[in-house]
């Protein structure tokens, strides 16, 4: 608690009561309510796109998990797919050996990813910048190699077969149209989004932003970094694990690419597109990236990557805060949050 008071007191608007500041930040705005209502629209307007919508929701959740460490705590990672993959394989393996209940599956996957996150966090908090990139990259390669060689458990390069997800709450079976898949993924995304939102607007979240802005100053004002970074890293890993588990449960399959570098790299693109350090940026980025990919690939299955590249360059050149950052600038200042 004391940390938060101190860190917010270091802001220019020091006269603001820190409690009021935090409270104002956590208030739900009209835009947010509208946004979440809009997420229900695929059920009515785009019924045939529900399986895409469910994969967008899963990717968005994964992006939120990366935003927690990258956008708020300043930990750059090119290996976040490790936790996604651990979650995906855990959920798959649990289901393969007879426990296909999806909700408890998510908890088990989150726990497994959190454990891996905790173990790796000791290295992560000790390095920065380029070394951090290299270490997370290396962790990713190691994870793929382990999963590849443990083919008795993971199915190796062929992928994990025999995953069967039971109906959600015993009622909603996963259907060909993707209704259950989207509904389930959306509910999980919303719950974990609310948790993440609460987290970044808590005193703990503020102290993370302090570390991001000035890693030397935070310990000097009595808020040591490593434990805080470790904590958020583990939370982020657990959320990524849930996202991975959702993917396995909704597709009833897992393969090595859930751990792969491509997934981590796509995720970085998504965050940059949407805008880092703002949770909605992760979701908007996921929507734009996945929809653009789907539509462009439909128009030209062979050369669509060109357009993705162009989009990415345009965004980083003209909208340095990402698409959401650009949108925010259109909103009158008095409606914006501080």
């Amino acid at each position: 608690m004391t940390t938060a008071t101190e860190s917010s007191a270091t802001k220019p608007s020091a006269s603001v009561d820190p409690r009021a500041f935090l409270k104002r930040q956590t208030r739900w705005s009209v835009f947010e309510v509208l946004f979440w209502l809009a997420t229900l629209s695929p059920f009515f307007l785009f019924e045939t796109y529900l399986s895409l919508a469910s994969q967008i929701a899963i990717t968005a959740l994964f992006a939120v998990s990366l935003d927690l460490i990258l956008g708020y705590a300043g930990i750059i990672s090119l290996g976040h797919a490790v936790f996604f993959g651990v979650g995906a394989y855990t959920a798959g393996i649990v289901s393969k050996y007879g426990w296909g209940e999806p909700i408890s599956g998510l908890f088990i996957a989150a726990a497994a990813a959190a454990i891996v996150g905790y173990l790796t966090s000791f290295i992560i908090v000790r390095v920065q910048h380029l070394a951090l990139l290299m270490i997370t990259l290396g962790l990713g390669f190691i994870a793929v190699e382990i999963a590849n060689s443990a083919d008795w458990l993971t199915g190796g390069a062929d992928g994990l077969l025999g995953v069967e997800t039971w109906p959600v709450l015993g009622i909603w079976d996963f259907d060909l149209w993707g209704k259950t898949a989207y509904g389930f993924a959306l509910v999980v995304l919303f719950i974990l989004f609310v948790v993440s939102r609460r987290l970044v607007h808590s005193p703990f979240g503020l102290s993370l932003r302090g570390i991001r802005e000035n890693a030397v100053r935070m310990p000097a004002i009595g808020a040591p970094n490593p434990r805080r970074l470790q904590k958020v890293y583990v939370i982020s890993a657990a959320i990524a694990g849930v996202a991975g588990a959702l993917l396995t449960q909704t597709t009833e399959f897992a393969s090595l690419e859930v751990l792969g570098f491509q997934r981590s790299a796509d995720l970085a693109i998504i965050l940059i597109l949407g805008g880092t350090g703002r949770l909605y940026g992760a979701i908007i980025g996921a929507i734009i990236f996945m929809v653009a990919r789907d539509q462009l690939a439909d128009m030209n299955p062979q050369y669509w990557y060109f357009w993705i590249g162009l989009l990415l360059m345009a965004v980083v050149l003209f909208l340095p805060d990402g698409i959401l950052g650009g949108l925010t600038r259109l909103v009158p200042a008095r409606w914006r949050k501080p």
Partner: protein
Amino acid sequence: MRILKAAALALAVSFAGIGHAQAQDTVKIGLILPFTGQFADGAKQIDDAIKLYIEENGDTVAGKKIEILRKDTGGIAPDVAKRLAQELVVRDKVDILAGFLLTPNALAVGPISEEAKKFMVVMNAATSIITTKSPYMARVSMTTPMVNEELGKWAFANGVTEVFTINSDYGPGNDAQAGFQRAFEAAGGKIVGADKVPVANPDFSAFVQRAKDANPQGIWVFIPGGAQPAAFAKALAERGLTPENTKVMGQGELTVEAALASMGDAALGIITGFHYDYNHQSEKNAAFVKAYNEMFGRNPDFFGVGGYDGMNLIYEALKKTDGNTDGEALIEAAKGMSWESPRGPIAIDPETRDVVETVYIREVQKDADGNLINVEIDKIENVKDPVKARM
């Protein structure tokens, strides 16, 4: 639960039928392939061969127009492949799912084909178990075990009793090695050493040296294409392993056109087992290679012949059902079907729905113009997938 699932599906399918009357005159084929990424060239081979087939045979069969919807998975991405298949079925209302260059993608789509009762044609992916994932699935490519087990038997029958194996340490490589070893040992041969090398391996000297130290009569190898065949051939030449003292054997990918070009004369004498090469001598193949070259300016490879035969299977099955696209009807029509392919005789096993074909044993030689080519020196006819035969 199964009944509920089936009922829901029947409902979905019947809804899908409503307002769909105009589609009676077209047959929609969803083609799922990795059009981008590192497997893009193989996907292009398949897609080009499909275009060629349609060019040659017209885009109407049994009174219906063939429409192809192309979807890109971007590489190994079973989740994407599965979603694309789902969307093709529920949104685009395709009648047939086809393509599938990569095993994980094919495996993930299998259940969609089963649930939606859609005829599914695997044009390349070569892991044995794929066809067990849907009763409406047929394969026209090959399986890794069928080629390597035949090669193993052939090697022993032709006087090679001790072999050292080297393979890339990943799924297809390990499967191929297991197949070769199983058949070679069952025939009476001895594996004197088995080394696994990293998938991305720039230098084979250490591995080839180890093989040489074991002093085998033959080396069996499985490595991915790209720069590796050349590196491997170089290591062989440096260590003095030549066809005179050691037989080098492998699966056909080792000596495809591009690989031969990169290996140069060091490839001479390498023996491979495979189901297709553009140099296969037959009237049908000569016409196929000529037409393919005219349209696309290069030779077809095993990917291409998979796409070509896949289309042939779809066309012939549709003719047999008189345009009925029901999954049940199409797979029944496909079972036991046999035809003359550019690769030689090919059939669909009525029990396993997997391919039955000739496995050729080829040796790299020089043709009259000095080009390196695969020359068939032996063949084993009517080979079925041995893994499913044992199941």
